[in-house]
């Protein structure tokens, strides 16, 4: 991996300068993208490492160099977000937004932007410096001249078959994504292709690199989102061979409450999380249905108390403390029915405006505080779904200040009773760390911030 950029480790006693390390990495990426010989460049970006900033910057520089550019994102929300970011950075750059022919296919905010042309037909957008759309929409584009360059965003979440459908549209591409997040999946079995370099259910990047191992690979070395309390754990548990660091120091982020603790479990775990960045609210061991009513209520209570106690966050972004409003809080779950149950419990407690979603849908998002219902809480078994490394990684890496995990006791024993038993497929690169190991690492760390509570 000689092509990897400097992972940002402290070397030779020099104080680590996150800004400089990130700038070096970005410079190398842009140099390879704009002036390199390779047809593709791959960038691994840990959570909150400035992936979107990199995509915007690369897009602007490619456009400035006169290369026709298409951008492939995975969801419409990501596409609209990118268009808005581009417009913010360079309002005079004409941008094409290719959209579906459904009703309300894009964010109405784009209507305010004169330089953004919107169409459901790629032909209408020909000649614009930048055209942006989802992978699903690009797959329908036919009979057009190929673009000189493409940027593929969230490439690790894109399936190999989706890349197959769009790769004919561009000459060269920059692939950006987070290898630690959830792998793409298929609702039907795809075992028969496991081990093939172009397994359609694998991630786009694994197929790309299997066929083009010589492509330069880079890595963003600094997480600007994760606080100093979280980066070492997330890096160690999910990126053991490609470590990254927090862009902020231990004292740069602070969380405080206007109202003192009432001594209850939720309040104590909030104090612990405010102090250390992590909190584990541990309910008594019990086997429960997925929508464990006690755990769901505990999650809702923690959120309620977070708001009631007048939380305020201090960070490097703002000079003073910023009140913790519902929009800056998220609840993460493994399953949709759990999210629905938490939403209902929150509504019962009169809380609105807090994002509640599954790990899949929280990917790429950022909040001040997150409350997580542990995927293995109350389960009788640990299936591959619940052990998936990416699921836990997403849930544990959305926060800027603190993360509170709500869980039933006994998960460590559950893990010991259920070692991973997935069949080993010939030709498939084994992913390290496996979910079992990552779960143990995270649990061991959370145990130091444990607040046992009997509701």
């Amino acid at each position, binding site marked *: 991996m000689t092509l990897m950029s400097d992972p940002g480790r402290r070397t030779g006693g020099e104080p680590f300068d996150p800004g400089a390390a990130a700038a070096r990495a970005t410079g190398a990426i842009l140099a390879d993208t704009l002036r390199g010989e390779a047809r593709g460049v791959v960038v691994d970006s840990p959570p909150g490492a400035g992936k979107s900033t990199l995509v915007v910057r690369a897009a602007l520089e490619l456009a400035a160099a006169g290369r026709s550019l298409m951008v492939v994102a995975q969801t419409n929300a990501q596409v609209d977000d990118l268009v808005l970011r581009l417009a913010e950075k360079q309002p005079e750059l004409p941008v094409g937004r290719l959209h579906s022919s459904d009703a309300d296919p894009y964010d109405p905010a784009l209507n305010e932007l004169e330089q953004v042309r919107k169409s459901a037909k790629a032909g209408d957008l020909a000649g614009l410096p930048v055209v942006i759309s989802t992978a699903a929409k690009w*797959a*329908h584009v036919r009979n057009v001249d190929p673009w000189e360059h493409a940027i593929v965003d969230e490439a690790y979440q894109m399936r190999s078959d989706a890349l197959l459908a769009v790769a004919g549209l561009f000459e060269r591409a920059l692939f950006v994504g987070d290898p630690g997040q959830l792998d793409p999946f*298929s609702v*039907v079995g795809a075992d028969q*292709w496991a081990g093939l370099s172009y397994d359609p259910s694998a991630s786009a990047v694994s197929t790309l690199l299997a066929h083009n191992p010589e492509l330069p690979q880079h890595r963003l070395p600094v997480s600007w989102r994760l606080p100093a309390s979280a980066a070492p754990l997330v890096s160690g548990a999910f990126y053991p061979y490609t470590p990254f660091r927090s862009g902020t120091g231990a004292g740069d982020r602070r969380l405080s409450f206007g109202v003192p603790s009432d001594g209850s479990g939720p309040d104590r775990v909030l104090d612990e999380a405010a102090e250390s960045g992590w909190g584990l609210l541990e309910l008594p061991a019990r086997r429960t249905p997925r929508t464990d009513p006690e755990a769901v209520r505990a999650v809702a209570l923690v959120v309620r108390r977070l708001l009631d106690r007048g939380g305020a966050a201090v960070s490097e972004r703002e000079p003073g403390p910023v009140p913790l409003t519902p929009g800056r809080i998220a609840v993460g779950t493994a399953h949709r029915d759990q999210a629905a149950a938490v939403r209902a419990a929150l509504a019962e407690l009169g809380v609105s405006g807090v994002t509640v979603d599954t790990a899949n849908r929280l990917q790429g998002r950022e909040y001040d505080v997150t409350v997580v219902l542990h995927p293995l809480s109350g389960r009788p078994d640990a299936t591959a779904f619940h052990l998936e490394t990416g699921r836990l990684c997403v849930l544990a890496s959305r926060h800027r200040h603190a993360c509170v995990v709500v869980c039933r006791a006994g998960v460590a024993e559950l893990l010991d009773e259920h070692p991973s038993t997935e069949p080993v497929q010939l030709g498939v690169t084994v992913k390290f760390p496996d979910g079992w190991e990552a779960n143990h690492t995270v649990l061991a760390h959370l145990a130091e911030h444990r607040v046992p509570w009997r509701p």
Partner: protein
Amino acid sequence: MSLIGTLARLEAVESGHAQPLATVRHRHLSDRPLVLVPLTTAGEAGAPLGALVGTDPERPRLLAVPQPRDRELRFGFLAELADAVLPYLEGYVSEVEPAEQSATDPETGKKVKVEVELCADAPQLIVPSRAGAEYVRLLGRSMRFRRTAEQDPETPFPAPPRVPLLGRWLTHYGERGRVPGSALLLTATELLGRHWATGQSSLEDQHLGALLAWVDAPAGETGAAAALRAELDRDDEGQLRCPPAGPATDPAFDNKLLAPAVERYDRARQLLAEAADGEAADRLLGELHGAEEAVRRLLLSQLRPTWDAVWRTVGLLRELAPGARVAERWTRDRWSFTGHRDRVAAGEPPQPRRDDAVTAARKLAARESAQAQLEAQEALDDPLVMAGRRLAGEAFAAQVVEVTMAWTESKRPSPRPLLTVRTDDTPHLAERVKVFRSLDGKPQSAEFVRYEEDGSAVLRLLDRMGRAREPAEGSVPEKGDLITWTLFEHEQRTGAGLPEPEDTPWTHGGPPRTDPESPDPVTPEDLL
């Protein structure tokens, strides 16, 4: 497992009998299916031991290999299997009906309709279990690259004439069997498991005998007790009374009965080869036939219970009326069968060993859309399945309590009536979430607008109301109507176009090789 599935299993445990998971049959059943019960040799992957095959429950055809390690005998078995299966398959190729298919005109590049043949019916293969279906694939894989003496006079071990062809058909059936909802290749365990819930784990449901015991327990006995008997009961000789459904055999059978019988056969053959004169040879030939007959009897004792269980399964399933959309899925199977018939007739080479990138992606896309379609269709066909979706928050039954007419704000206003509905279900509704109902068999969509104070939901109807300002008659629900809405779509959009294999891009290794595949090389394992 879905919540309703878990509940059904709990009820099965409590009552001791399997509980229905469906009120209609969700798979097509042919009037004349071909049942195949294969057995394989322990420790010899791909060495068939025997099979029962046929379309008549009373008259199965027994195929047996008295010495499974003998390549000649193995080829003999495959030739006999081809003789039993191919006439059945070929019985369906010539009865056709005209059908239309869209194709791209090579000159204009436009989509045009072309008239093609569609087989009026298709042959259906039923095997006991998933392992049996896997064995069909294995047989297909082992046969389709064989060369006959006619294809290649130099080949050291020419395969009997029709064996490669059978390999291609079994490969096709094996692949089609992976498409959700398809019925060309069915397994008895999956048929039962789809329609009934037992009080045992899904792993235990892989045992056809135990599964059938739950679903169809003898009078006066609980399913649990019958299933336990099916799993464990042995006779005085230590043999299972309900032998495994194969293709693997019970080790006790292998060791105590089969091995001595095969040894006797080997010995008889050896002696026959060394026979000194005609008289001795005659006697020894008799002994050889006797030995072979003994192996056949043994195999029949293992195969017949499974054979009967498969037909019993077919009988149980036939008692259920087919779901309304089952025939539509069967038509897809007929297309699949017709397509392969045409490829064989056109002299195309056998299916490649591995799919190329584009073919793999196409298959995956087709199966994913078949899966979504199957889930939607089963729910629409069957109130019990729909109840499961309602319990999961993916559908809801609601009564219309108010209809308020409204229109779009445009030059030519279109109707967008607001429906206030009341439901006891708990669907996962959020603003702008689309819901669908079936209107004359076609989906009509609406979007969720808001919850009212009293908990009723407001939906905005979006389509299928005609072009006029006033909605077409019958297209808008009326007050008092009880309607089931789903949060999932009823029909699948056709997937995005993938490139042609010869246009495979650089990210996926470029175009695949096009030279025909060579036959499997002969390895030392082939020459025992």
